[in-house]
């Protein structure tokens, strides 16, 4: 499969052509983008629409643990939760994936075998991205060899902010190649890019480099995902496809804790890029505590009242 269709093929021919292309993208007006996101956040999603959105959101969750204190036991527990988020409710769907550090991939693969839940591994010196490229690529190959279905890489924000766009692009392309059959999610760490113009450019860079998904944040930097950032990235994915590129998914991660927030993101997806992106194949939530609020709201919708938080498992 060609990574970039003919209309976009020349863009990455040299550092100059790439820079000119990225600077030629329509600018983003900060006030306008934030106002649009805020307007969409006022949509009122009730009853059947809410039930639909909650189930969809559960199916889109990348259940994540990325801590120094992660152990095989913790990962196995998380995998059990991923398979059956609400053990008391068989109608509750499984989540999309479990996201862990590379060394814990074998544990997750074992625990999720036969479940359909995918294993995602962060790589490329997550979260800072500060390591020699060979080290990053070795990390990717290792995680893929261990059975990871998806790789969440970070871009080199230092290179991006220094204007070395082609370096960022080439690194994404190299990781893409190292991924083999595994899906590649490219984390932009939008909190460090600071402007929406940068978010739009980095989104295009990642997509031109071969990303299957573009992802907002590592979750280790504040601010993490915000609604306007997601809006700008979705617009980029929409425009990339319209320009002859592939369809690229979007993952929002970090700081999304409530079902209400998740539904707001789904509204932004719905009214920016539409149905095509409203499946776990094309939109994901990277989160941990979000899942329990989704489950609680799901139960509330079914029974009419809130359950005790201890009705839901902590992991």
């Amino acid at each position, binding site marked *: 499969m060609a990574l970039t269709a003919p209309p976009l093929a020349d863009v990455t021919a040299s550092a100059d052509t790439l820079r000119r292309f990225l600077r030629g993208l*329509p*600018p*983003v*007006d900060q*006030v*306008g*983008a934030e*106002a*649009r996101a805020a307007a969409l956040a*006022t*949509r*009122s*999603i*009730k*009853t*059947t*629409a*809410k039930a*639909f*959105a909650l189930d*969809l959101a559960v199916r889109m969750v990348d259940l994540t643990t990325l801590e120094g204190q992660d152990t095989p036991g913790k990962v196995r527990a998380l995998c059990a939760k991923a398979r059956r988020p609400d053990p008391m409710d068989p109608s509750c769907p499984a989540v999309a994936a479990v996201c862990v550090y590379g060394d814990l991939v074998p544990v997750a693969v074992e625990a999720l075998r036969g479940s359909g839940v995918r294993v995602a591994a962060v790589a490329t010196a997550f979260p800072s991205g500060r390591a020699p490229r060979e080290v990053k690529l070795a990390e990717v190959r290792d995680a893929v060899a261990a059975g990871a279905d998806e790789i969440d890489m970070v871009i080199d924000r230092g290179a991006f902010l220094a204007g070395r766009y082609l370096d960022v692009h080439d690194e994404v392309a190299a990781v893409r190649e190292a991924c083999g059959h595994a899906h590649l999610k490219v984390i932009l760490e939008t909190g460090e890019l600071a402007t929406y113009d940068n978010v739009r450019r980095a989104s295009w860079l990642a997509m031109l480099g071969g990303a299957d998904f573009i992802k907002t944040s590592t979750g280790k930097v504040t601010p993490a995902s915000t609604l306007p950032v997601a809006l700008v990235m979705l*617009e980029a994915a929409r425009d990339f496809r319209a320009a002859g590129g592939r369809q690229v998914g979007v993952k929002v991660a970090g700081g999304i804790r409530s079902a209400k927030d998740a539904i707001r993101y*789904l*509204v932004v997806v*719905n*009214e920016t890029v539409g*149905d095509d992106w*409203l499946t776990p194949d094309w939109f994901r939530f990277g989160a941990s505590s979000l899942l329990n609020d989704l489950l609680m709201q799901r139960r509330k919708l079914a029974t009419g009242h809130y359950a005790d938080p201890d009705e839901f498992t902590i992991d």
Partner: protein
Amino acid sequence: MPFEYAPAPESRSIVDIAPSYGLFIGGEMVDPVDGTPFKTVNPATEEVLSEVVAAGPRDIDRAVDAARTAYAQVWSRLPGRERGKYLYRLARLIQERARELAVLESIDNGKPIRESRDVDLPLAAAHFFYYAGWADKLAYAGFGPAPRPLGVAGQVIPWNFPLLMLAWKVAPALATGNTVVLKPAETTPLTALAFAEICQQAELPPGVVNIVTGAGDTGRTLVEHPGLDKVAFTGSTEVGRQIARSVAGSSKKLTLELGGKAANIVFDDAPLDQAVEGIVNGIFFNQGHVCCAGSRLLVQESVAGEVLDRLKRRLQTLRLGDPLDKNTDIGAINSAEQLERIRTLSEVGEQEGAERWSVDCPLPDRGYWFPPTVFTGVSQAHRIARVEIFGPVLSVLTFRTPDEAIAKANNTPYGLSAGVWTDKGSRILWAAQRLRAGVVWANTSNRFDPTSPFGGYKQSGFGREGGRHGLEAYLDV
């Protein structure tokens, strides 16, 4: 599977519409002397909401007399600080009853609850708060050490923002020490009548605010009444001209806020996604029933195709329907008469050779509806580029150079507002200096604030409302 939003209607049980209303004169709801009843309907369903009075000449006499008495005996003698207290009280009561007033506004006017809730009501309350603050500081407003009020003001307001236009008229008039007789529009009297109740709740001295309902005849009788010192009108240029004629030669002071045919100018370096939002907000906000609507899109030819593609894609996501549904973007056209005007002008657009494109969405069976519509291939010579349509109809024109953009934008008898979309700050300032419009929005549209003056050039009227400038219209300076 599509993500369908379930109906999310705002409850209308919060409003209590009486089967009939009288006139608010001298602090009380009174029966008319020579007025005749007429019905007000919900434009989204054609359901009759209530019966109101078309006030007759003798009713107007009574109202003006009540205002004169209140002016002479109470209001003009009150210190500014006391007037301010009443205005703050009115502002707080509007806030407290905001949900009820928003629902009532949407029922009577047809505008989406999202807009009445998030725009009309907050702005109406903010206007009262703002002018309440001026009431005791008039000596520092730059109109001399002790500026005097004018006396009794006759105010006639339109149907597009009924309560907000009431706030724009009543708040500065009261803050400066005038008393008022206000006539709301024929099709949207209900929030003004609810405001009458709020005046009673606030224990505003009787006669300071009088509200007489009715249509054009009532409005004419009011503005021609010899007992007025001031006439303020917001509405069509045609009626504004008649009023200017009738007031000429009298001692009445006059301010007019009339029509517009604003240009939204999109340069090739504009933030396109946000420009599209601005275009949508500019012309489809409030079904295009906005005097400062960006009804002409002037887009640089080099990006016209891209902008139109994005615009049409965006328009397909607009949700048209029940004004009380919290997810509705486009509500009902305010009246059968207005709908007819929009239809006629759209047909003229087609006949004159412009290409018509409408959003493909089902329209409700009952009520007055018109789908968001875009005309491309429009030139300056087309009537749809010159006449104010006052509906959800956008005329798209192109330009090649910045000078041409300004020339086309100014080539209209109106001059109320304009918009500039560019990433270049210097070009914004360059354009704003050359656009003959009372308001120039840069990279945004339809933004309002009580601190900011609003008003027109040329046939869009004269005088300013809002801000410090808005005080001048009600002071003897």
